[in-house]
C-alpha cells in the first residue's frame, strides 16, 4: 500500500528535477529545508530521524539536492525520506511544505487493522504497519 503523507503524495513520485524546483521555491521564500528519514511509516510517527541540520543560509537548491543524494546513498534502499521546509518569520519554525522524496525499494506492504474487544461489545481499532514487525533497520529489504 502506497504511503500518502505530506504534499503531492497522491501524484506520481516527483522527479529530481521537480524536487529541485520545489526546493528552490522554498529557498526563494526564505524557508530552511530539512531532510528526515524513517522506516516506520505509521501516520502518527511524526518525528522522523533528522539527516543533519536544517539547511539555513543556502542560496541554491543544488546544496539541498547534494545532501539528498548523500542521504539516498545511505538510506535510499530501505527508508522513506521526506523533505520539509520551515518558515521562521513568525519567530518560531513552522512547517510550510513537506513531501516524501524517497520510498523504500522493497514492497510497501501497508497496515493491518487490529480489533480489540472491550466491555459491552465495544471495539477499539489499532493500525500496525507490517514493516514494523521487523526490527528497525531490517525493514523493507
Amino acid at each position, binding site marked *: 500500500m502506497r504511503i500518502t503523507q505530506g504534499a503531492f503524495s497522491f501524484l506520481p513520485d516527483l*522527479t529530481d528535477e521537480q524536487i529541485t524546483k520545489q526546493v528552490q521555491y522554498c529557498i526563494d521564500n526564505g524557508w530552511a529545508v530539512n531532510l528526515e528519514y524513517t522506516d516506520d511509516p505509521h501516520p502518527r510517527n511524526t518525528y522522523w530521524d533528522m539527516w543533519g541540520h536544517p539547511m539555513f543560509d543556502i*542560496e*541554491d537548491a543544488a*546544496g539541498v539536492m547534494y545532501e539528498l543524494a548523500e542521504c539516498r546513498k545511505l538510506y535510499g534502499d530501505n527508508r522513506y525520506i521526506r523533505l520539509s521546509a520551515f518558515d521562521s518569520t513568525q519567530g518560531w519554525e513552522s512547517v510550510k511544505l513537506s513531501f516524501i522524496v524517497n520510498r523504500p525499494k522493497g514492497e510497501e506492504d501497508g497496515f493491518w487493522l487490529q480489533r480489540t474487544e472491550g466491555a459491552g461489545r465495544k471495539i477499539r481499532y489499532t493500525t500496525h504497519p507490517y514493516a514494523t514487525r521487523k526490527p528497525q533497520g531490517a525493514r523493507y529489504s
Partner: protein
Amino acid sequence: MSDRPAASDTETPDAETAEERPKAIDLREEYESSGVDEVLRELDESLVGLAPVKRRIRETAALLLVERARKRMGLAHETPTLHMSFTGNPGTGKTTVAMRMADLLYRLGYVRRGHLVTVTRDDLVGQYIGHTAPKTKEVLKKAMGGVLFIDEAYYLYRPENERDYGQEAIEILLQVMENQRDDLVVILAGYSDRMEKFFESNPGFRSRIAHHIDFPDYTDDELIRIAELTLGEQNYTLSAEAREAMVEYIHHRRAQPHFANARSIRNALDRARLRQANRLFETAEGPLSAEELSKIDASDIRASRVFKIAEDEADPDREKDQQTPK
C-alpha cells in the same frame, strides 16, 4: 522510485532547445541582451589599471558567450571548466574582480544565483578528526549556485604536517569541482609564488582549473588615481599640495615592508581623514564650510610615519624608528 513517469509534463531544457533551436545567432545581439556588456563596462570604469586582467576577463566572456551560442545550436553539451585561479600581490583587486566575475557568470547563465562566498582555510578545515568534511561540505553547499572564492588557498595544504586536515578538505573540493561543475565555480586566490608551489604539490587542482589570471602590481600613477577615486566616493578632495604629498607618499611607501597596493592607499587615506578631523577640531574658529570639511591638506598626509622612516633611511645617522608602518 522506479515507477517514475516519463518526464513529458515537465519542461526539460533539452526538449526546449530541440524545439526552437535557432538557425543562426547574432553574437552582437547576444552580447548586448545578456548584460555582459554592462558588467565589462562597469569593470573598466570602476577598476583602475589591471589591463591584463581586464583583457583576460574579456576573452573569457567572449569564450563563454560563444560556448553558450554553441550550446543553443546543439553543438556543445559539456559545461566548460570555469574554475579559476587569481594570483597577485595583496591589494591588487582579486576579491573585487571575483565579485564581478560572479556577476558576469550569472548574466551568462553559467551560475544560477551569482552570489560570492569568500572563505579561507579556517572556514574549510576542522580542528579535529571528522570535523573537516562536514565543515567543507557546509561551505560548498552555501556556495552552490554561485562562486566560491578561496582566499590564500595555499594554506589548505601544509606539507610539513602529514596529518594536517587540509588534505581532506582538498579532496572534497576536488571531487565537487569535478562532479558538480554545473552547480558551482571555484576561484582560488593568493600570492603568485606560493600558489605556484601549491599547484605543484596538488596537480589535481592545476588540471581542474582552466583560467589562471595574474594580477600585476599597480603603478604609482594608478595608485594616485585610486586615491582620488576613493576620496571622491567619500566626498573628499585632495588639495594640490596634498596630491603632491600623496605622490611622494606612494613612492616611499612602496619601498617599505608590507606594502599592499590599493589596500595601503585606502588605509593611508583613512588615517589622513582622521588627522584632518583632528586638525579641524583643534584649529577651527567659527563655522566651517563644506569645502573646508572635505579638503585634505598636505599636512594631513605629511604627518604620516612613512615620511619619517624614509627620511631616516636616507639619513642613517639619525636614530631609527623601530616601528614598521602598517
